């Protein structure tokens, strides 16, 4: 086996074999295929967990370098590493169900996450402020759709005029569903085509080395 085969072709063989296996297991009633596909799905979970380690180690390495080289905000990198290793020490010694671990998670991650999620309300307002500049017919239609539903969703709207409720529901159920169904079917065809191209190695997904399969 040449290096070229091992480095460039073998990954694609793995991709295609397991991909086709996963695909066939849903359609063809042969127990062996079902079993193999099931096994490969449990493998994916384990490899995924190793990918988590890879990602986390990359974060750690990045910040060790930053802390060591005393780049700007290096003390923050040191703090990040401190937090990271404390989580690991507590998580592995006392367990993830332990009070200490839960406290660390609950005192840091949960409220910060809630804060991040809270910003969505703010971002939405600024997006609305910038987005609905009516310049073209497309943006006018964009605004029109927005207006009909926004008025309906405010429970004040239907009180002012019950018609808002009726129109809002009609618009969401008929023209919107029609459009979305068309897009969904298009997406399905696109996905299936892309997936099949990927399995047949017609599509570049970044596993290739040296000469590119497509242009770019």
């Amino acid at each position, binding site marked *: 086996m040449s290096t070229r085969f091992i480095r460039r072709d073998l990954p694609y063989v793995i991709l295609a074999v397991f991909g086709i296996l996963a695909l066939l297991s849903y359609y063809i009633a042969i127990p062996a295929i079902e079993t193999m596909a099931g096994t490969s799905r449990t493998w994916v979970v384990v490899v995924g967990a190793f990918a988590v380690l890879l990602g986390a180690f990359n974060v750690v390495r990045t910040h060790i370098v930053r802390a060591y080289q005393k780049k700007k905000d290096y003390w923050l990198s040191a703090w990040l590493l401190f937090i990271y290793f404390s989580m690991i020490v507590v998580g592995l010694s006392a367990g993830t169900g332990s009070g200490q671990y839960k406290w660390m998670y609950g005192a840091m991650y949960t409220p910060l996450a809630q804060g991040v999620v809270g910003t969505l309300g703010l971002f939405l307002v600024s997006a609305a402020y910038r987005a609905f500049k009516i310049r073209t017919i497309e943006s006018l239609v964009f605004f029109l759709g927005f207006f009909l539903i926004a008025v309906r969703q405010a429970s004040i709207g239907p009180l002012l005029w019950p018609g808002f409720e009726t129109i809002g529901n009609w618009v969401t159920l008929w023209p919107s569903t029609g459009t979305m169904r068309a897009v969904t079917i298009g997406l399905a065809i696109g996905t299936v085509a*892309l997936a099949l191209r990927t399995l047949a190695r017609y599509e*570049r997904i970044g596993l290739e080395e040296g000469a590119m399969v497509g*242009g770019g």
Partner: protein
Amino acid sequence: MILFFQGRITEFLLILLFFAFQVFFILQATKKKEIGYIRHISGLDAIGEIVGRATEMGKPIHLSPGVYAGFGPGYAGPTVAALSMFSHVSSLAASKKVPVLASVNDAASYAAIDEAVRVACESVHSPECYKSENIQYYAYGEALLTGVFGTMTRMKPAGNFLIGPFGWDAVVQGELGAYANAMQLGGTDAFANLSMLAATCDFLLIGEEMFAAGAYVSKDPKGAGALRGQDLSKVVALLFIIVGAVLWLAGNKLVFNILGV
């Protein structure tokens, strides 16, 4: 038939048919060596423009596949589309020596995107475009967003590619990119989040356009053939709908029943 699962036979045959369309037109186009007509897709034409802008400004570009990136059945489609797109974008960036940043919160997608960017940059010997610390893994969605807050304010990328299975993060990532004055291309599968990308991005890929990226951008006969095959699949869908509807109105459920076999 015992060999096939009941109720999935038509489905399987359709997959084979779609695959046959792809292979047939790809082979035909490769043999003829000509690129047929392809409709202008402004979102995909913008890729070159965005990378060009980054080159001029001497700033990086940022890739983000969204908070739901991953290879589970619900999201693998747009994730693979993102992978294909990012692979093209980063090789274009590599050829212009533009650094590539990426923020990902799913481990497997992180590994795949990291590999795609690394391969793209190494194959044109452009080490400045790939640095392992620039492709960051954030473990969870909220952490990803704080990371993107930071990346956007501190690195101020000139281009932002928001392609993949976006969720509630679409409005945050789109607005942060806009605050950083990045030129943005957005595309995602779910309409809910596409509307946020439509509001925040300069260019938008609607629905299937996202999945055509690899084939369209490559500008080679193979890609054109693939798109041709995809078009024929849509014609099949249209036929099912139109013939089925006419028959249904006449009181005949033939097409409906065929699809359920």
